[in-house]
C-alpha cells in the first residue's frame, strides 16, 4: 500500500515537474547510482577557480545538508576535514582525475566522493544578483566511474535572503550581511543541483524514483 502511494506520488511529480528536464528518466540518466546503490558520501573541499576567495567556504559548508536530505550518509564534515588535512589530502585537485579512489573507501568507508569546481562567482553591482557557475561530480570509490554530474549557472537574488523586516535587516547587517547572503547563494545552488539526485537509503523514496524525469546535465537558472 505504502509503495503504491509513493509510486502514485512520483507519477504525479512527473506531471507537475520542477523545471527543465532532459528526455531521460533517472534510471537512464543515473544508471550507476541505481546499480551501485551508494550509501556513504565523502565531501571533498571545493576547487575554487572563481575570483571570490571565500567561495570555497560558502560552498563547502552547505554541501552536506542537501545530500543528507536526499537520504545518504554523509561522512562527518569537520572530522573528515581534519583527517584529510592530517593525511595531506586536503587538495581536491590531487584526486579529481585519479582513476582509483579506493583509498577513500578504506579510510572513510565512502562509497562515493563529491568533487565540486566553482568556476565563476560574479556579483552585479546594480541588481543584487550573484551568478555562480559550479560543477558537481560524484565518483564511485569502487569503480572510479562518475555516477552523477551536473554543471549549473545559477543566478540568485540576494536581496530576498534576509527577509523584509527592516529592523531585522539592520541587525543582520550589523553582524555580517555579506557572509549571510553569500552562504545563501551557495545553499540555493547546492539545493537546486541535488534535487535531481536519486534518493538514498534513508529516504522513503529510495529505489522508487527511477521513472522520474531527470534534469538536464547543464543548467542555467535564475532563483
Amino acid at each position, binding site marked *: 500500500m505504502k509503495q503504491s502511494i509513493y509510486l*502514485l*506520488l512520483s507519477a*504525479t*511529480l512527473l*506531471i*507537475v515537474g*520542477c*523545471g527543465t528536464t532532459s528526455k531521460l528518466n533517472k534510471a537512464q540518466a543515473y544508471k550507476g547510482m541505481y546499480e551501485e546503490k551508494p*550509501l*556513504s558520501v565523502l565531501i571533498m573541499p571545493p576547487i575554487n577557480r572563481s575570483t571570490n576567495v*571565500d567561495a570555497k*567556504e*560558502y560552498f*563547502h*559548508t*552547505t554541501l*552536506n*545538508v542537501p545530500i*543528507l*536530505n536526499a*537520504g*545518504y*550518509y*554523509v*561522512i*562527518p*564534515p*569537520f*572530522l*573528515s576535514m*581534519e*583527517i584529510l588535512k592530517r593525511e595531506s589530502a586536503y587538495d581536491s585537485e590531487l584526486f579529481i582525475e585519479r582513476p582509483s579512489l579506493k583509498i577513500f573507501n*578504506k*579510510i*572513510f*568507508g565512502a562509497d562515493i566522493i563529491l568533487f565540486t569546481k566553482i568556476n565563476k562567482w560574479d556579483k552585479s553591482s546594480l541588481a543584487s544578483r550573484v551568478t555562480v557557475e559550479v560543477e558537481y561530480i560524484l565518483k564511485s570509490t569502487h569503480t572510479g566511474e562518475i555516477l552523477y554530474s551536473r554543471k549549473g549557472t545559477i543566478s540568485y537574488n540576494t536581496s530576498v535572503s534576509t527577509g523584509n523586516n527592516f529592523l531585522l535587516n539592520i541587525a543582520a547587517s550589523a553582524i555580517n550581511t555579506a*557572509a*549571510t547572503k553569500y*552562504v545563501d547563494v551557495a*545553499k540555493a545552488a547546492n539545493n537546486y543541483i541535488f534535487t535531481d539526485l536519486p534518493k538514498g537509503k*534513508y*529516504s*522513503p523514496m529510495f529505489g522508487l524514483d527511477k521513472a522520474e524525469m531527470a534534469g538536464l546535465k547543464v543548467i542555467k537558472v535564475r532563483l
Partner: protein
Amino acid sequence: MCIVAFAFYSCSTPKGLYSFDKYQQASYNYLKKADEKSINEIMVQYQKIITKQKGIRKVTPPGMFADYGFFLIQRGDLNKGKENLNKEILLYPESKIFIDRILKLIEK
C-alpha cells in the same frame, strides 16, 4: 489526490528528512573564524539538531553526533566526546570504519 501530492512535492520548500536550523551559517562562521564565539555558536546548533529534530525521519542526521563529539574532544571533554562518537556508530553502522579510526587516534 493530485493536489495532495502537489502540496507534498511543491518546488518551493518541501519538508526535509532532517531539520538543521542555523547549522550551515554556523558551520561557515566556524570554518572562517574558528574563534570562541563561532565554536559556541556551532555547539548550540548541534545540540538543537540532536535534541529538537523536526524533519520527517525524527532522528539525528548522519554525522552530527560525530562532529559534535569532535568539538567536545577539542574542548577537552574527552568522555562526552567519545560517547557521541559511539552514538554515531550505533545510529549509523556504516560510520564504523571511519569512527573507529578516530577513536584509535584519540587513544594514542
